[in-house]
């Protein structure tokens, strides 16, 4: 769609479909019903491909770390190219400068040894479990965030859709019966009003297409009005000179587009009637070969991610104070480097909670240690925190979803994953 022009067609087509009226009624109902509604936002960033948590959050003070990691090891803070200091034991990858600032501002909570309930090493099954929220892969066609949205209390609801995926298609985590939107930038021209109406007429007898078209028209109209400005700096520049030189130019142009997309989506999220929940997808974390340490491939990717998070904060403005960003991956990588200066599929990895609503500035770790007997199956970082505990607690505290619904519908069979108190600032919501 042409983002520079208002798109009156969208509203009219919606009326034609009989949905705008419903949406308005919904909005009216909730704005009166919930005067104290907090503008809480939850952003889930999926890191597909199995992030190497021990490179994102190097445990430089662990006595076995440098030996296991060899040339991939990142030195203690203060050394040349050392980690960014956190708590004296863990650091952050040198590419994560914004996250390091956020840690200093008590807006980043670092979780260095987490996993879902999945214990095999297939990306695709692992991602399925990460997104479905159940214990077995491919056991359900809906995602935990969608089931959470079904149980979203009126007070946490604003727009017509309460969730949006920053993608052409909706990833599993957001699929299900709650209405969600997907959005991605388009270079194609808008249709004229009359043609769109005729297509909508034709789709009226096709439930799937009618629903999708209505979602697209609603989201398109809202994103059209979202603030979007041209990117100032060069992405590669913020990734550091070394990062820029090491970066594959194909990746670099993709990174620029990704950050632009995050900016537009953030403009959509900050709106008063914007969605409560957004999902961003990132790929490229599967570092079997030439992973790099303080410099190199993974650091460069982390720097792009870091820049997108900075962009998210800047664009959200005041809303950042009411935002929680969860970053998580399907599993971790081997504790030791493999034979090709990379790492193979493992188990425990790092996750992060970021945002103005997070009680940050802390590393939340029951660190299992990296000695041979403490590794999971003598090869991987042993997870000591269930990601579902983090997800449940955030949904409960931040979006006020009742624990009964969380335990029954959103994360069935998660009694082994208890709630964690105090992840968020008590006054944020």
């Amino acid at each position, binding site marked *: 769609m042409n983002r520079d022009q208002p798109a009156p067609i969208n509203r009219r087509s919606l009326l034609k479909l009989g949905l705008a009226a419903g949406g308005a009624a919904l909005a009216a109902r909730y704005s009166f019903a919930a005067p104290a509604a907090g503008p809480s936002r939850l952003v889930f960033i999926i890191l597909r491909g199995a992030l190497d948590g021990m490179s994102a959050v190097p445990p430089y003070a662990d006595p076995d770390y440098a030996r296991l990691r060899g040339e991939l090891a990142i030195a203690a803070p203060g050394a040349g190219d050392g980690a960014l200091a956190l708590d004296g034991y863990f650091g952050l990858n040198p590419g994560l400068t914004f996250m390091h600032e956020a840690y200093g501002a008590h807006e980043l909570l670092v979780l260095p040894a987490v996993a879902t309930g999945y214990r095999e090493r297939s990306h695709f099954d692992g991602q399925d479990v990460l997104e479905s929220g159940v214990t077995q892969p491919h056991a359900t066609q809906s995602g935990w965030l969608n089931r959470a949205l079904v149980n979203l209390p009126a007070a946490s609801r604003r727009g017509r859709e309460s969730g949006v995926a920053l993608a052409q298609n*909706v990833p599993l985590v957001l699929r299900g019966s709650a209405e969600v939107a997907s959005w991605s930038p388009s270079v194609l021209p808008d*249709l004229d009003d009359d043609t769109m109406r005729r297509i909508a007429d034709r789709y009226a007898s096709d439930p799937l297409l009618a629903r*999708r078209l209505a979602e697209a028209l609603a989201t398109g109209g809202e994103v059209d009005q979202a603030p979007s400005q041209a990117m100032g700096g060069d992405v590669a520049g913020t990734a550091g000179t070394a990062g820029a030189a090491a970066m594959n130019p*194909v990746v670099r142009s993709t990174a620029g587009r990704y950050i632009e997309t995050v900016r537009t989506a953030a403009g959509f999220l900050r709106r008063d009637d914007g969605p409560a929940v957004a999902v961003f997808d990132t790929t490229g974390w599967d570092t*079997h070969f030439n992973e790099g340490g303080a410099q190199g491939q993974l650091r460069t990717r982390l720097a792009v991610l870091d820049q997108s998070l900075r962009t998210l904060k800047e664009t959200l403005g005041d809303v950042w104070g009411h935002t929680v960003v969860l970053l998580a991956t399907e599993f971790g990588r081997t504790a030791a480097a493999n034979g090709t200066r990379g790492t193979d*599929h493992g188990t425990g990895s790092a996750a992060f909670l970021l945002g103005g609503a997070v009680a940050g500035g802390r590393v939340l770790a029951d660190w299992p240690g990296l000695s041979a007997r403490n590794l999971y199956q003598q090869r991987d970082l042993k997870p000591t925190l269930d990601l579902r505990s983090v997800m449940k607690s955030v949904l409960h505290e931040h979006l006020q979803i009742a624990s009964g619904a969380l335990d029954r519908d959103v994360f069935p069979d998660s009694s082994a994953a208890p709630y964690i108190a105090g992840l968020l600032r008590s006054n944020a919501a």
Partner: protein
Amino acid sequence: MSLDYSAAVAANRFGLGAKPGELDLIGADARGWLEAQLRGPAPVLPTSGLRPTADILSDAAVIRQQLQALRRATTGKPAAAPASPAADPASAEALAAVMRLPQLFRPIYIAEVQARLRNAVATERPWVERLVYFWSNHFAVSIDKLAVMGVAGSLEREAIRPHVLGNFRELLLAVEQHPAMLLYLDNQRSVGPNSQLAQRAARRDRTLGLNENLAREILELHTLGVDAGYTQADVTSFAKVLTGWSLGAGYGAGKMQDGASELFMFRPALHEPGAQTVFHHRYDQAEQAQGRAVLSDLALARPTARHIATKLARHFIADDPPPAAVARIAEAFERSGGDLPQVYRALFQSAEAWQTPLAKYKTPQDYLLSVYRGLQLPVADGPKSIAAFDVLGQRQFAPGSPAGWPDRSDDWDGASALMKRIEFADALAQRLGGTRAVAELGPQLLGATYSDETRVSLKRAASDGQALTLLLTAPEFLRR
């Protein structure tokens, strides 16, 4: 009234979308039309202008050597970072050098995708062509890994096409030895911990070792499937078996042997000596024969038959394929020892494949190929002619993971994806204007699936251009 959907199903589900005249050609014998396509040699892509993998990788190796020389020349210089690349000629040169590989690969990639698209528009054997794409996606590589960009197309041409009507074992062996797959899944430098090379390295205090990536994905994605019951120990053992499966100059570890090409090369110095046990079988063969033996067994294992049958049935019958059809296809696979035409026959002779027309939502690739074929669009030179794949969400050879593109409606029917399809169709229809007789096109492309509702909406359209938009966005044109 019972309509005969079989010609429309044959052309649109099994084929790549009808081109004008195709449904008449198929007539009442849809199965015969499919069967005839399985006879004769596997179709080759007209290759004028396309280069063999060995050529492409030789050029790339030269560039890699230049890059390495440049890197050696710059290390040891003072560490003070220059203010900007422009201020430092050496750094500007380094940036220009980094661009050389994409500059080599990108035109090759574009030419491959164009050749494939032109062939799809013209082919008289669209069902075999769809099978080529099915296997290309089963053995997926992704060009977001730069090393693969120049050779993703040649993997399909050299390793997949020749075996599409052959035996699964031969197909598997060809793919796992192709440089594109070895590079994509990082096997070229995987070194046995007790190999000659690792021992030499250990004496110099360097550690070389395994990379599990290829071994794991062969088991999980290419053969047995994730639920077959293999273990981490099987993955590790199989990775040892595959050590030494590498390629020629510029990529493999260790010294290049005389006369080695840029194609597959077994490097004995990298190979882990000794017997290995993989998925209940012990393999004591020497060197490369060990890997061939494991792959041969995996190719014919029962879980592999079931895995392949499930994927075929999902692609050609329904997102959740009927178990009876899966069982029938798997049985044909096992009984024939992986003879692919017999597997394909079991598929199209399954009644389930014909019972529910339009059961599958088209992927962007399905959609674009059916538009190009249906309208017989020319494919111009230059990158613009293939940009639509990117815009609609399925950049060719770029699934982003070794699992390939997903194959369920949920994965493709997003609101934003639908809007892009609509916008694309409309932009195309406006450009073509009244050059197509749209009223005749509907039945020609959709046959018995062409609905009265769509017929009426086209008849009432304000212009030929609008009618074409309505045809290309009709519910029955978005599915197959």
